[in-house]
C-alpha cells in the first residue's frame, strides 16, 4: 500500500521544502510514482503571474506537468489575518474541498508527500492544521526542525508531545543544521537525547546556507525598493552573498568591499564614492536609501558591469531591518541541492511499514 508522509515543522525555516523536493526526486529515481500535496498555501507569497505560492511554484516545476498548481495546492490563507476569511463554522466546506483535491492526486500515485503549514500550531483554531490533515489523510508525520542551538531542541520535544498526544504516528525528526556549530551540537547532544526519548532522528540537513541566500527579486520584495537601472529579468534570480552598509569613508570602505563577494551594498544615493568603489569589487546589487537618485556616472558604470541599482525612500536602518526579515525560497536552479541533501536522510526508513 502507498504511504502518505506529512512534513510538519516546529517553526519556519525548517527545510520542509528541501526535504519534499529531494525526497520526491529520490523516490522517482527508484521508479516510484510520487505525488506532492500542500493543503494550504501562503496567500502572502502568492505570486500574481503563477497564481500560486512560492514553495508550490518551485515544486510544480519538479512535478512537471503531471498535476496543475491548483491541484497541488487548492487553498490559500493569509497566516496573519485568516480569521476574517474563514470562521470555525465555515471550515467544513474548505476541509472538503482540500480533501477532494488530495484524493484526486492520491488516486494516481503510489506515495504522497504532504507539505504542512508554517508550523504545527498554524490554523488549529479553525481545524485546518497539520494535525487535522494528517488524520484525514492517514499520514505518518516527519517533524522538520531548524537547529541553531539547544533552544530549538525544546520546540522539537514540545511539537512531538503535542502530535503524539493527538494519536498521530510520528516517524521521527529531520534536523536542519543552520550552522557548523549546530551540526556539532546535533552530533554531540541532540541526536542521543532525542533517541533516548524514543524520537527517531531520520537525519539532518547540512550546509543549506546557499539555499538561504536571497535573490535580487526577494530583496526588492522585502524592501519595496524600486529598480532604478538594470534588466529585471536578467538579474532577478541573482543570489546575494552578504550585505554591507556603506556608512564609512571611501578609503575604509574599500577594505570591507573587497573582503565580501556577491554582496549587496546599502548606502545613500549621494555616496557616489562608495557606489563607484563597490562597483569595482564583487557586487551584485546596490540599494540607494533616503530617496536619493545616483548620479549618471554611477548608473553608466553599473550598467556596464550588469549590476542593478535600487532606490528607496526608507532610511538605511529601516532597510537593514527589512532585509533581516527576508524569508528565502528555493529557486529552480537549486533543485539539485535538495536532491543531494536527502542523501543525509534515512529514506528507506520513511517508506517502511510502521
Amino acid at each position, binding site marked *: 500500500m502507498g504511504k502518505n508522509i506529512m512534513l510538519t515543522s516546529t517553526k519556519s525555516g525548517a527545510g520542509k521544502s528541501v526535504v519534499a523536493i529531494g525526497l520526491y526526486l529520490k523516490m522517482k529515481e527508484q521508479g516510484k510514482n510520487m505525488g506532492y500535496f500542500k493543503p494550504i498555501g501562503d496567500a502572502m507569497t502568492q505570486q500574481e503571474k503563477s497564481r500560486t505560492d512560492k514553495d508550490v511554484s518551485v515544486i510544480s516545476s519538479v512535478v512537471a506537468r503531471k498535476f496543475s498548481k491548483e491541484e497541488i495546492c487548492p487553498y490559500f490563507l493569509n497566516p496573519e489575518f485568516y480569521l476574517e476569511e474563514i470562521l470555525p463554522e465555515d471550515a467544513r466546506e474548505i476541509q472538503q474541498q482540500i480533501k477532494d483535491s488530495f484524493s484526486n492526486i492520491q488516486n494516481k500515485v503510489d506515495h504522497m508527500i504532504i507539505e504542512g503549514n508554517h508550523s504545527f500550531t498554524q490554523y488549529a483554531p479553525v481545524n485546518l492544521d497539520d494535525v487535522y490533515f494528517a488524520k484525514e489523510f492517514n499520514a505518518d508525520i516527519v517533524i522538520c526542525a531548524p537547529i541553531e542551538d539547544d533552544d530549538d531542541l525544546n520546540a522539537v520535544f514540545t511539537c512531538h508531545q503535542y502530535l503524539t498526544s493527538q494519536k498521530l504516528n510520528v516517524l521521527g525528526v529531520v534536523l536542519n543544521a543552520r550552522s557548523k556549530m549546530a551540526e556539532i551540537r546535533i552530533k554531540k547532544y541532540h541526536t542521543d537525547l532525542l533517541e533516548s526519548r524514543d524520537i527517531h532522528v531520520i537525519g539532518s540537513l547540512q550546509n543549506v546556507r546557499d539555499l538561504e541566500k536571497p535573490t535580487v527579486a526577494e530583496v526588492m520584495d522585502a524592501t519595496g525598493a524600486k529598480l532604478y537601472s538594470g534588466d529585471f529579468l536578467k538579474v532577478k534570480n541573482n543570489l546575494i552573498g552578504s550585505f554591507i552598509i556603506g*556608512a564609512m569613508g571611501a578609503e575604509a570602505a574599500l577594505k570591507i568591499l573587497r573582503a565580501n563577494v556577491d554582496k549587496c551594498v546599502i548606502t545613500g544615493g549621494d555616496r557616489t564614492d562608495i557606489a563607484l568603489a563597490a562597483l569595482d569589487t564583487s557586487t551584485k546589487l546596490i540599494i540607494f536609501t533616503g530617496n536619493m537618485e545616483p548620479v549618471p556616472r554611477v548608473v553608466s558604470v553599473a550598467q556596464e558591469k550588469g549590476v542593478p541599482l535600487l532606490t528607496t525612500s526608507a532610511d538605511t536602518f529601516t532597510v537593514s531591518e527589512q532585509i533581516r526579515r527576508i524569508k528565502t525560497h528555493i529557486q529552480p536552479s537549486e533543485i539539485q541541492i535538495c536532491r543531494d541533501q536527502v542523501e543525509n536522510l534515512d529514506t528507506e526508513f520513511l517508506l517502511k511499514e510502521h
Partner: protein
Amino acid sequence: MTSKSIILSSTKRGSGKSVVAIGAYLKFKENGINPGYFKPIGDSSTIKPKNLTDKDASVISAVVARKFSQEQLCPLLLNPKFFLDEILPKESSEILEKITDAYDFIASRTDVVLIEGNHDYRQYAAVELSDAHIAKNFNAKVIICAPIAGDSDFDDVLAAVKIFRMQQCEIGGVILSPVNSTLENRIQKYYLPMMRNSNIALIGGLKSVKTLEFPTIAEILEAIDGKLLTGEFVKIKNRKIANFVIGAMHSNKAIEYIKRKPNVCVITGGDRIDIALNALETPISLLIFTGNLRPETSLLKKAEEKQIPTILAAGDTFSITEKLQNIHSDIQLDEIEICYEQVEQNLDWEEFSR
C-alpha cells in the same frame, strides 16, 4: 499555611511577563496580601558581573527589597542556547528538587508566589524543566502572556493552552497584548469568542508602552560590546535611545533627518568626520563609531564639550545594527510605576488573582 502560586508563562519573548510580575506584586501588596516572587531558572547569558543574577530577577529584587536574596529568588541559572553543556537530562529531577527547596522557602513566608516562567513555554522541555513541568510540580495556576501581532500568534496561544492542559496544568487565563488598535479589534471580534469556546479566560492585555522598549545606553554598550570614548558611564547609563539613524548619506541630508527625530543615536564610520561633526551640532543622545575607526581627538573634544556620549564599536555597520535590533530591553528601576499602571488599568484583577 502554604501559599498559592501563579506561574506567568509566555508564547514568545517580549510578552511583558516581567511587567505583569512586577505590577501584580505591587498590586497584591497594596491589597494587604504578602506576595513572593520566584524565578526558577534565570538566564545566565544576561548576568551582569556585579550582581550575579538574571536581569529580570535583579530588577524585581529591587522591588522585593531585602526580603529575599537574589539567590533565593532565582536559584538556578542556565544559558538558553547551550544549556546541554551545563546539565544532563538525567540530572533534571535533582535540579527540580533544588528548585523546589528554594521555592518552599519563599512560599512558606508569603501568601502568594508569582513565578516568572522561562522565555517561552517550550524552553527547557528537552530537560523536562519547561514551565509545564514547573507548574505541575508547584501546583501553580498558569497565566499565559502573549504578544499579538497577527492570527499566527493566536494559533500559538491555543497550542500553548493545549500543551499545558495535556500535562494536567490549570489555566488561569491569558493576557493578550495587542501591538496596535487593529489587533485590539481582532481580539474582541475573533479571538474572544474562540477562547470562550475553549473555556479560556481573557484577563486583559497590556498597552504598548514605547519607552519600556527603548534600550538604555548601558544596554547598547553591552549589546555591541562597545567602548565608551566620551561621557561618564554612571551618569549616562540609564539614558534611553528612541531612534537609530545610520549616517550613510551625505552630511546635509543626514542632518535634516536627524533633526526630525527625538533621542537619536547616530551610527557612522569613525572616519566620517563630516557626519559626526554635523551630528554633534544637533541635540542627539549618542554617537556610535563603527569599524573600530577611532575618530580624531578634536572630534572627541567637541563631543565632550557638547556632553554627547560616544562609543567605539569593532563590527561593521550592518552587523552592529543587527545587534541593536536584537536588544531585549529590560525594565529599569524608574519604570516600576509603569508596570503597576499596566496591571491596574488593563487587567481584570479579580480574574488574575482568583
